[in-house]
């Protein structure tokens, strides 16, 4: 296998090097890639869409159709992880900790579930007493991360960022909660059902905004047709359409990141994690 791999790699490398020979000079402003389409985008974007960040404009408007399917890819990844790993069977082996004394109860092969409350708490198999410093720092940090994520989503039109990045950052704030406390804290705060619905609704917002344009008289995804539905300056309607779409992307990505993490780290049982 190693030898075969080596030969395949060398052949590919040789092909690519052969192709590199006639590349245009590095960073040449006159190369075909930088003259044909890109000039149109650079010069017309602000005029046509009122969005200064050209990347966002091209992503969500000119090539919005790609981005719609990109969001579907993410949704599909979340769904796949759920389908592959989710295991609804309850584990027979459970661990409880008596809060006042710190005594740990190990329950084997029992259908009986102890009532968790003031006296007892559920714990993981490898119990580590939660670290006060980490907990406190994370508790302060998480809201700020989330606000930053919202900022990234909302400000995607003017600065680097957008729905996808914002969604990932929001999702990682949830993951941070799961790591610094424990997985159960996260699963109790945000139910699996909510995450699943968020993922579908996020993509649905995107496809829905795109579909509404058709009965309004335009082509699919043509945000310009949404003007009668939206308040404000009709010139900004494309920017508003993009914002709506980005919110959908952010919602879907946030939910999917959390779903993937929860399922991988607990092998689909949603009980204990990192």
């Amino acid at each position, binding site marked *: 296998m190693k030898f075969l791999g080596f030969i395949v790699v060398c052949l590919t490398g040789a092909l690519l090097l052969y192709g590199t020979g006639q590349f245009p000079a590095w*960073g040449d402003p006159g190369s075909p890639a930088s003259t044909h389409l890109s000039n149109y985008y650079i010069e017309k974007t602000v005029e046509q869409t009122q969005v200064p*960040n050209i*990347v*966002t404009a091209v992503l969500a408007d000119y090539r919005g159709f790609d981005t719609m399917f990109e969001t579907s890819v993410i949704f599909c990844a979340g769904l796949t992880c759920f389908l592959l790993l989710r295991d609804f069977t309850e584990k027979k082996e459970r661990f409880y900790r008596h809060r006042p004394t710190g005594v740990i109860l190990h329950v084997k092969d029992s259908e009986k579930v102890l009532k968790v409350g003031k006296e007892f708490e559920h714990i993981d198999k490898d119990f580590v007493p939660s670290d006060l410093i980490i907990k406190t720092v994370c508790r302060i940090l998480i809201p700020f991360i989330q606000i930053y994520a919202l900022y990234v989503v909302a400000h995607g039109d003017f600065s*680097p*960022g*957008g729905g*996808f*990045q914002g969604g*990932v*950052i929001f*999702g*990682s704030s949830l*993951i941070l909660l799961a*790591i610094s406390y424990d997985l159960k804290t996260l699963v109790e705060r945000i139910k699996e059902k909510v995450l699943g619905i968020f993922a579908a609704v996020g993509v649905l917002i995107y496809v829905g905004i795109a579909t509404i344009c058709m009965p309004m008289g335009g082509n699919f995804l043509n945000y310009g047709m949404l003007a009668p539905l939206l308040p404000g300056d009709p010139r900004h309607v494309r920017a508003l359409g993009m914002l709506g779409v980005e919110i959908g992307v952010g919602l879907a990505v946030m939910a999917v*990141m959390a779903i*993937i*993490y929860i399922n*991988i*780290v607990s*092998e689909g049982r949603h009980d204990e*994690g*990192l």
Partner: protein
Amino acid sequence: MHWPIDLIVLTFVIFCAIAAISVKDLLGTAILFGAYSFMMCLLWAIMGAVDVAFTEASVGAGVSTVFFVAAVFRTSRRTKD
């Protein structure tokens, strides 16, 4: 773009890539892989692709590494090569 910076970062990228696939501990691979992604993100930021660099910083160096560590946590660190 300043080419010495570019060259240094590129060298680091290749170093991290080779190290990530040859280290004999999967947790080490996870960390080196995160470093690789971060170096890549720096490189793209230098090249002016801020949006892509932003995404790579949050995805490649952030969430991917977490998924990786989670998967290693649920499987094993052992690797033969």
